[in-house]
Structures are given as C-alpha cells and as structure tokens.
C-alpha cells in the first residue's frame, strides 16, 4: 500500500451545540487505504467523518488534505469536490437514477456528453444500468443505496467517506453491496473511510481499523491487531472479547506469567511483576473444547474441566457459556457442537494457549 497521507488531522477539536464532541490528537488516512471506524453510538464517528468531509468546521486544530491546510468558508467547495460522502440513508433526489448519478457532475459543470459517458460507466459498474430511467422513489433499499454509491463514485473522488452505508439493509443485500464496494475500492484505488457497526464488514473491507469512544481515537491498527490485541478493556469488550478477567500475577518466569483468577491458575505470555493486578482477555474463538481426559493430547498451557451452562446460537456458530471455576465463553461451529454432542449440563474440557491470552495492565 502507498503510505502517502491523503488526509491528516492534528490536535483536532470539534464542538457541536456548545459541547466538545471530538478531541483527536492525530489522524491519518493513506493513499489507497480503506480505514474502518468502529465505536459505539455517540463515539464521534459521524462528527469525525463530517469534519473530514469539510461539512463541519473544527473549533481548533489542523486539517490537511495532501499536506495542504483545508480551506474554510466558500473556499471549502473546491476541497469538497475532491471528496465524496455517502450517508446511511440514500438521500436521493426526486428524479431518475440517471439524474441522481449525474448530480455531482452537473454541479461541477461537466459537459452533457461527458456526463452521459461517465454516468453510464458508473451505472454499469454498480450494476444498475437497467434502472437508469426509473424514479428514485420507486427503488428498493438496496437499489437506492447502490444509486447513492454510484452518485458518489461518479465524481471520481480522491477520498470517499462512507457513514454506515449499509446499516439499514437486510443481510443478503448488504453482502452483495459489500462485495461490489470492495471491488470498486480495490480497482479504483480510492482511499476510503467507512464507519460501521458490523465488525465482519470492517474486517473484510479495511486495511486498518480505528476504534473511537467519547470523541477520541482509542486504538488504530491492522484489523487482526485490534481484534486480538485490544489496547484497552473498552476496546476488548467492543470487539467481542467476552472473556475479560482480572487476576493477580503469582510468578513470572522468562516471559511467562502465572496468574491467579478466582482461585484458578493460568499461564499467559507477557512481562509482569509478581503481585501485580492485571486485566486480560481471550477471544471466544480461541477457546478449544473437547470431551474426555483433561490433560490428554494438547499443547495448550491452560486446560480447565468444566460444564456447559448455556448455549446461545449465533447463526453460523454457537456461543457456549462454561463454568470452569470462572465463567468462560467459547465459540464453536454448529458442526463441532453436534460432533461433541454438547448440551447444557454436559461435562467439557476447555483449553487455550498461553499466547491466546492478551494482557493489559489494570491501571
């Protein structure tokens, strides 16, 4: 990936209705990069996106586009013409699909012949050429959002900002649109910022993931790092780390820590000091379940006999709540569940590697 920054923000402060809603010390979006913004409602994702799109004026700080300071006031129009934004609602105009996709080009004063050419190509690319003459009011949710995406991409923006674009769509439509968006982003190399509540979508599309809370960026990094090595307890719980525990270091031996949690002992990789209180987490999918003798045939350093207390179906997999002296959550496929014949009350052995445990200091 090209590491040239396209968008940068430094010491950015944004106020809305007299309240500070954004306090960003540093933000960078690189060329050709897809950045996924995740965080709870009210975390500041939309405010950050609106600010980066030139639609919300910051109270202070620096905003740079290709190393140049953002213009303000009427000068911002030129800057906004290099960026496009798609909202959760399609926000289509009361005209045809063609008219909608042509809107950004008409605004820029592109000659009619060129508009037709570019709109036709974009309609083809988003597979809505057959809808060109249809009224935007008569489109399904998926078709409307496809039109909204096509309208944004028709202007060939250097950066595209997508604020939960698929949140209101049903899962199959969402899947199809995500496929098309992924292809367009890769083919056209457009730098993109995508905010989403769907971590699957973020993992699939993003080169980098950024977690926000209370108007600040809490963690930024490759998706695998954010998902497996969360920086804080908040990030851990937000990215689905349901196994978050507090323990005390009892022994440290060469990069291996021995922890005591509710009377149970665990081995984890990491540095620490004896007697130190720590918080650690384990992803449910890193917990391995077996039935039979606890210690047999495993390299996992942490093996706990226990029993299933609850099974919660999650679609393609099942979430199992286990009692092992402490409550541990494991995620297994439907097939594994059937093969192991697990049901509430079944005895089970849970294990996980010392490297599967992610440690952060409690302080």
């Amino acid at each position, binding site marked *: 990936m090209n590491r040239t920054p396209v968008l940068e923000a430094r010491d950015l402060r944004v106020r809305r209705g007299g309240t500070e809603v954004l306090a960003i010390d540093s933000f960078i979006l690189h060329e050709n990069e897809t950045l996924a913004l995740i965080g709870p409602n009210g975390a500041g994702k939309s405010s950050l996106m*609106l600010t980066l*799109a*030139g*639609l919300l004026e910051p109270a202070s700080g620096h905003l740079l586009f290709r190393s140049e300071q953002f213009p303000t006031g*009427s000068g911002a*129009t030129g800057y*906004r*013409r290099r*960026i*496009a*934004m798609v*909202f959760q*609602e399609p*926000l289509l*105009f*009361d*005209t*045809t699909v063609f*008219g909608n996709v042509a*809107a*950004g080009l008409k*605004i*820029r004063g592109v000659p009619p012949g060129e508009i037709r050419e570019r709109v036709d190509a974009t309609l083809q690319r988003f597979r809505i050429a057959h809808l060109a*003459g*249809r*009224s*935007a009011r008569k489109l399904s949710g998926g078709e409307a959002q496809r039109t909204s995406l096509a*309208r*944004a991409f028709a*202007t060939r923006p250097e950066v595209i*900002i997508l604020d939960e674009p698929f949140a209101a769509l049903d899962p199959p439509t969402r899947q199809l649109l995500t496929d098309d968006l992924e292809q367009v982003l890769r083919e056209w190399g457009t730098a993109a910022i995508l905010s989403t509540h769907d971590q699957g979508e973020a993992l699939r599309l993003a080169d980098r993931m950024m977690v926000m809370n209370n108007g600040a960026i809490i963690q930024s990094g490759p998706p695998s790092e954010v998902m497996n090595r969360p920086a804080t307890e908040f990030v851990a719980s937000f990215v689905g780390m349901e196994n978050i525990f507090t323990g005390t270091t009892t022994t440290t031996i060469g990069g291996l820590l021995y922890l005591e949690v509710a009377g149970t002992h665990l081995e984890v990789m990491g540095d620490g000091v004896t007697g130190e209180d720590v918080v650690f987490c384990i992803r449910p999918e890193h917990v391995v379940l077996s039935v039979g003798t606890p210690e047999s045939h495993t390299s996992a350093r942490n093996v706990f006999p226990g029993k299933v207390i609850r099974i919660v179906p999650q679609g393609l997999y099942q979430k199992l709540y286990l009692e092992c002296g402490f409550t541990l959550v494991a995620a297994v496929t439907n097939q594994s569940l059937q093969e192991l014949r697990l049901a509430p009350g079944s005895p089970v052995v849970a294990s996980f590697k010392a490297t599967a445990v992610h440690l952060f200091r409690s302080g």
Partner: protein
Amino acid sequence: MEVLFQGIREALRLLLTLDREVLSITLLSLKVSGLATLISVGMGMGGGTAVALTEFPGKRLLVSVVNTGMGLPPVVVGLLVTVMLWRNGPLGALEILYTPTAMVIAQTVIAAPIVMGITIAAIQNLPPNLKLQILSLGASRPQMLLLLVREARLPLLAAVMAGFGGVISEVGASIMVGGNIKGYTRVLTTATVMESGKGNFDTAIALGIILLTLCFGINYLLTVVQQRERPR
C-alpha cells in the same frame, strides 16, 4: 335559481363581448394579485428557506409569528396599511393610499406569511442530512439552496398557489386601501361586493364566475408546472 342562470348568461355575454370595464377590472386584479404574489414568493421563499436552514435564538417564536401571519384577517391588514399610508401616517408622504400600489402592499402583507410559513415547513420536512449530502457532492451554497428548493418543489408550488389564492380572493384589504375607484382601483372582488350591494346579482355572479375561472386557470397552470418532470 333563475338569478344563477341569469348570472351565468351575463358572465358569458361579458366575456364573449370582451366588455371593456370587466376586462380592465380583470386585468387589474391579475396585475395587483400577481405582483403581490411575486413579491411574496421572493420574500417568503427566501426568508422561509433561510429560517428553515438556520439555527438562531428565538427561531421558534419567529416561526409562531409567521404561522399566525398565515391567518391574518384581510380587514386587519387593510386597516394597518391604511393607518400607515394615511396622510398623517408614518408613510403618508408617499401619497399612495387609494392606489393600486397600496393594494399590492396590502396583498403582499397577506400573502408573504402564507408563502413563508409553507416554505419553512416544506424545507424543514426534507431529510435532515440532505443539505449535507448536497454540499458533499461539491455544491456551492447557492447551488445547495437551488437543489433544496427543487426537492421541495411540490409544497413550494402549493405555497405559491395558496399565496395567490389568498390575495386574488380577498376583498377587505383591497376595498380599504384601494377605495374601489372605478377604472383605477376596482378589482374583481371589490366590484362583486359593490354589484351585490346594489342588487345587481347577475353582474355580481358574472364577476364571481370570472374570478373563479381565473383562479382555476392560474392554479391549473401552476399544477402542470408542479407535476411535470416527475419521473415514473
């Protein structure tokens, strides 16, 4: 019933023979109400769009005042404008009382809040993020305003119709500030009141029918504009 048929016959006669007096009354009605509507559209749509898109202290109070203004009784407007334009009034020096200009002013005072009130509601009824979406498409502020107005064209044209309908049919203000002077400030409504008062019901009905036809014609034209270019 006979009176009604006689009135219809009289209306047809007046229209077909292009009666000079009726023609001049109709043209003046169109001129005064058309001009008042035009000024009201400029003021009401401009002001209404600005109010709808801006947040400021006292906005709710202003919108309430405008909404109250949508139901202003024409006689009260007539009285107010008369007092202002009276020889010793604040605007007496203009010497425009009992002129078509005074009638245009009074009718503008009636129509502007109607247009403005409907405009505020129409623009506020658009999706809240539409303004941001238009700006993010690269629109300048004037382009954004034009696109918003285009999106709200159905209720906005209804605002024009309501404004025009309100002034072409009012009589109280026109008679008070115009004086119903023959050949100068006599319009369809004031002439209808006068003929009816004199017991000339056939002429009054004829003028009423002309007024109704005029209203229908103008509203039909506006409806055609309102409904055209809507994709199927």
